[in-house]
């Protein structure tokens, strides 16, 4: 800091930074991207290891014998489900009671803000059934949850296995925590209702009946999805609501038991490869990590476990995958795996807290911790700070230049006069900054509120369905926002000056830096993807560049187009490329899903984009058309 307090050296440093600003920014951007890509390279990552001592070794003897019987129960469940045409509540209650559980039901109903066309539901009514295995000699203070969604098509095997495990677990004496076996209807909506009921909160305005039985504070939860009698591999899903992740020890536990029992395990549907030094091996790891980044950035729960994370309950979804592979795993083995995991979780003395909560996984056995990936993001945001510094310096130069001219003009040189003059100089600046800020945020508010508000009107006047109406209104408001600010700009009294746009850009750049910084702290992936596209925009935009070309680039790098590219990129990563037509439809459904996620589960991505990121981007758009 001696550097800064010495005016000469400070001046030298500042002139260096302003003179080399563009090259430094370019280097930072390159370095940020390179750093990020390097994260997937195996020698740079850490091996996963179990941090929690209570789950240290996998020395549990798994004895679950009844896989076949569980599958038979699953078939029985399927038959009853077909007969009832929904959740066979009575049958489930009876079956769970016969297994010695305390059984309770919870009914819930929810009307969606607009029909969900992917799952074809609008007015949802359902019942959750759960049975509690009371641990002997435990005071009902802690619980574990095993859940299986009852979805219309499949997942019968999961329910069967859940009931089989319930029966087996009930006969064991060693439980120290209550175990709650939950079959939830309408997947995430049912889960949301159950969790809200359990914690007696209401964050999303759902109607549910209060729960009758509880097991204290839930320590961990697993959600099970199986749709075939035999599987080839088990996939672990970690990404939850708002990009929250469970403690890494839960993933470690799953991996440890898969290794022990000899089940193929995947993450993001990708098997682990050993050839990290080959190009294909590296690109495989990059793909796996990018899939995780994309899923996390979407902020939606990728399995029923995703909603638990809000309540500080470590949870994951285990999916059985049946592909064309020789080696098959039967239900008994999966049961043994789950038994082992639950016995380990049962041993927990404290909540899972030892390991990381912020990480990325290029494979199940390797992880990138927050300390490793944050520099990539830091390198990108430093560009914004450098540009801000540059602008600040330019602004002070302009000011001091003016002062000097005024100074030389008035020989009387009273400080009062200077103050007066400078305030006169900057007052149009404040107004010219404030107006675009307010206008762009009002556009953001419109983008957030109008689609739901005007769906009925849109349906009346246009031949579209409600869902289409919402999505198209959103896109219309978004596009309209592009036209608004530079039109209103003319109404500004103090017409655009050189100094005016610089002040506005300074504010916008700092705003973006704070916004991205906060986003990345909560959801790194979202922050990083936004930084990747918005930082170049923020860095290069001025009113003096070719209008048409830069407008095109600006639109390409706007949040909506980022989302469009992400959709294609995600499909590409999943090795399911789509045509442009399908991609566009997918894009529309992704928008509607994002809005639904916000209203149903409280996902924050939609309001974040609509209320903060989009207005911020509009500010840059405004600068481009500054006159």
């Amino acid at each position, binding site marked *: *800091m001696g550097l*800064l*307090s010495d*005016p000469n050296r400070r001046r030298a440093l500042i002139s260096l930074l302003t003179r080399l600003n563009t090259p430094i920014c370019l280097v930072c951007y390159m370095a940020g991207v390179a750093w990020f890509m390097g994260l997937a390279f195996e020698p740079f990552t850490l091996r996963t290891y179990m941090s929690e001592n209570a789950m240290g070794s996998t020395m549990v003897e798994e004895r679950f014998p009844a896989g076949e019987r569980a599958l038979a129960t699953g078939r029985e469940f399927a038959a009853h489900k077909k007969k009832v045409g929904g959740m066979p509540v009575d049958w489930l209650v009876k079956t769970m009671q016969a297994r*010695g559980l*305390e059984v309770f039901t919870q009914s819930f109903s929810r009307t969606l803000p607009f029909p969900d066309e992917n799952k074809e539901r609008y007015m949802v009514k359902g019942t959750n059934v759960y049975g509690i295995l*009371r641990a*002997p*000699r*435990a*005071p*009902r*203070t*802690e619980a574990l949850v095993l859940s299986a969604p009852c979805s219309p098509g499949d997942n019968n095997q999961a329910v069967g296995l859940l009931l089989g495990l319930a029966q087996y677990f*009930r*006969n*064991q*004496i060693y439980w120290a925590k209550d175990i709650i076996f939950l079959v939830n209807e309408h997947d995430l909506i049912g889960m949301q209702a159950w969790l809200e009921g359990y*914690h*007696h*909160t209401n964050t999303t305005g759902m109607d549910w009946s209060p729960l009758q039985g*509880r097991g*204290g*504070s839930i320590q961990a939860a697993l959600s099970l999805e199986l749709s075939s009698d035999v599987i080839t591999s088990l996939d672990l899903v970690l990404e939850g609501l708002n990009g929250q992740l469970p403690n890494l020890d839960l993933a470690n536990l799953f991996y440890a038991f898969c290794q022990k029992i000899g089940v193929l395990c995947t993450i993001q549907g990708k098997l682990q490869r050993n050839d990290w030094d080959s190009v294909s091996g590296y690109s495989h790891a990059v793909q796996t990590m990018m899939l995780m980044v994309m899923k996390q950035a979407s902020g939606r729960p990728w399995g029923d476990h995703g909603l638990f994370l*809000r*309540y*500080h309950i470590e949870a994951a979804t285990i999916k059985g995958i049946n592909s064309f592979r020789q080696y098959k795993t039967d239900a008994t083995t999966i049961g043994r795996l789950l038994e082992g995991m639950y016995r380990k979780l049962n041993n927990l*003395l*404290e*909540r899972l*807290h*030892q390991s990381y909560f912020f990480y990325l996984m290029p494979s199940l056995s390797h992880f990138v911790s927050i300390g490793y990936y944050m520099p990539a993001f830091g390198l990108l945001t430093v560009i914004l700070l450098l540009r801000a510094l540059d602008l600040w310096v330019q602004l002070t130069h302009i000011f001091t230049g003016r002062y000097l001219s005024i100074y030389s003009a008035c020989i009387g040189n009273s400080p009062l006069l200077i103050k007066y003059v400078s305030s006169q100089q900057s007052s149009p600046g404040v107004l010219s900054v404030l107006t675009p800020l307010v206008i762009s945020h009002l556009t953001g508010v419109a983008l957030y509120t109008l689609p739901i508000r005007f769906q009925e009107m849109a349906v009346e006047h246009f031949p579209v369905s409600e869902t289409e109406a919402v999505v198209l209104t959103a896109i219309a408001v978004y596009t309209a926002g592009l036209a608004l600010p530079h039109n209103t700009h003319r109404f500004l009294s103090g017409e655009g000056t050189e100094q005016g746009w610089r002040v506005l850009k300074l504010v916008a750049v700092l705003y973006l830096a704070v916004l991205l910084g906060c986003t990345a702290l909560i959801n790194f992936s979202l922050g990083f993807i936004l930084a990747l596209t918005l930082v170049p925009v923020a860095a290069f935009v001025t009113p003096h560049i070719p209008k048409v070309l830069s407008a095109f680039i600006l639109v390409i790098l706007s949040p909506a187009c980022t989302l469009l590219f992400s959709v294609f990129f995600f499909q590409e990563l999943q090795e399911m490329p789509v045509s442009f037509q399908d991609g566009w439809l997918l894009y529309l459904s992704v928008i509607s899903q994002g809005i639904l996620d916000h209203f149903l589960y409280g996902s924050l991505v939609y309001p974040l984009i609509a209320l903060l990121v989009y207005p911020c981007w509009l500010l840059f758009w405004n600068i481009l058309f500054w006159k």
Partner: protein
Amino acid sequence: MAAYRYGYSAVLFILCGLSVFLVTNGQETILTGDDGAAAVDSPQTVTETAEQTAEQPAVEERQWEVTEVEEASPDEAAADKQDASAPETLVPPSVPRPKDDFQEELVIRPLHSGDIYASFQFRTLWETDFMRGNKVSHYRLFPKSLGQVISKFSVRELHISFTQGYWRTMQWGQPFLPAPPGAELWVWFQDSVTDVDGTWKELTNVLSGIFCASLNFIDSTNTVQPSASFKPLGISNVTDHRFLRYATLPREIVCTENLTPWKKLLPCGTKSLQLTELPLFSLQAGLAVLLKSEKLFHSSFHSQAVHIRPVCEDWQCKTTSWELRQTLSVVFDLHTSGQGKREWSLFKMFSRTLTDACPLASSSKVYIDITDNPEGEQFELIPATPLLSQAVVLGDRRTFSVYDLTQQITFGAVRSLNLLIRWKSTEGDMLRPLLHGERYVAGYGLQTGEIHTLMYNNHPYRSFPVLLLDSVPWYLRLYIHTLTVTSKAKDNKPSYIHYQPSKDRVRPHLLEMLVQLPPNSVTEVTVQFERALLKWTEYTPDPNHGFYVGSSVLSSLVPSIVAMDTNSTQERPLFSSFFPCKEESSYFVRVYTEPLLVNLPTPDFSMPYNVICLTCTVVAVGYGSLYNLLTRSFQIEEPSLGLAKRIANIIRKMRGVPPL
């Protein structure tokens, strides 16, 4: 406000008085029957017996034995014991009356869920006086360790329980002796004690040694003085709650190291004979042989307790004697016992059979609750017993098969008693308990939360008042203005509230309320709290486990099930059935809710080094230099002029021209 409250406490007092009256009233009828020692104890029983014989001649050879009401809930039992025990100990005057007396019994109740509930009670009665500094030095049956505690700390009443597990009221019904999970201790001191808190502290430390439990963790931060919920159970004229201390340790884990010292207090409990004066008998005898830890802790619920109180020696209550009652309750689980067969035997439960009674015991009995099984259609009892007994337990008239261990005939030819209960059908419903409670923490995040306490009144048409006692540690800062009591979606105004706010690190919150529960309803009490940030030395070694909040206590006079019986078609004398209120019209019940586990905001203790390094760096580099920049005054240094200029300036100065 104060007058208002006193008005309500008066109501409360009347209520308590009424309960005592009712109980003693119920007692008298039994006493009159007892004197005769005949098969008649009350008109009611006569009719019952008549019915029984009329319906089933096979039962005819069964003989009705009269017993005093046993195993009622503490308050009722209290009143019971002080009167009912007197006739029991009456012996012909020719025999020199022993100064002390020991009784043991085991009650087994098959539960509808297929589980089985076994409750041991051991009672030592000693006609002596520990009070007023009376030195007692000769001990026979009464354990000396406890006797010394009583006299040293001037204890009037002492109740201590250790429980592992939670009593599932909805599956198992009401227990004979309710106890909260963990350890519970409540003590009434004599009014001669001046420094109650000091004595309490010493007493907890001594008891901690006697019972091998961490009772020494009881300090002022978890001790309260309930004003109404815990009244003395023995004879007493002190009801000033200044002399009462109540504390729970919900975290306490109960295991064999607590069982062994508890067993040592029994006259026939352990292998090490305390009583050398007695002739040698088999080292362990009586019911105590069943107390094997490997089986007792292979169960769903385990609770052991010690109750000491002064009781009346005879019904005139001229002299007092001290009663030590040791109880142990255990529930065995149907499913975890293996094979899943609905069959229980003493051997399967305890891995022992009974071969004799404790030679020191004046009475030694095993009771099996056969109320739901009058004709043996539910389960089969082998060997059958001719002895039957009836008692009103928890407002319900129950029938018991009795095995008297002092009679050789009980053990049969094999000289060992292995009771076998074999289910025939799984049908049958349990009568829902009239009162039960639940508690949970609502909300998410680590800043605030809400405690919900639910009280269920399952009575179809009668409402009754319930005393709720909540003791919450100081680190949950209750927002008492958010306290709401609602039943049936309407505001339910408690008629009595006693609230003592907490003091940080000194004492907990104490909240006592008298709430009227409407019939067939759920009453919900909610209060919001804020989670305090502790000092770093105040965290437990496992802070991420969470912090416990003890059970809340619901004490109530519940309308009896017998009184609920409106079926007037039953055969009974007309004169007995006009007024709906009977002698047992209400009974005392204490229900404990589950304890809570609450997470507090916890720093990451696993990386103190990182934290120290980071904070030091931030403070030194960031703050230090910023402070430096802000406080330093900057001056622009005049650049030093060259030699030529200086000379020029001197010349100019001499010429009177301003310098360059």
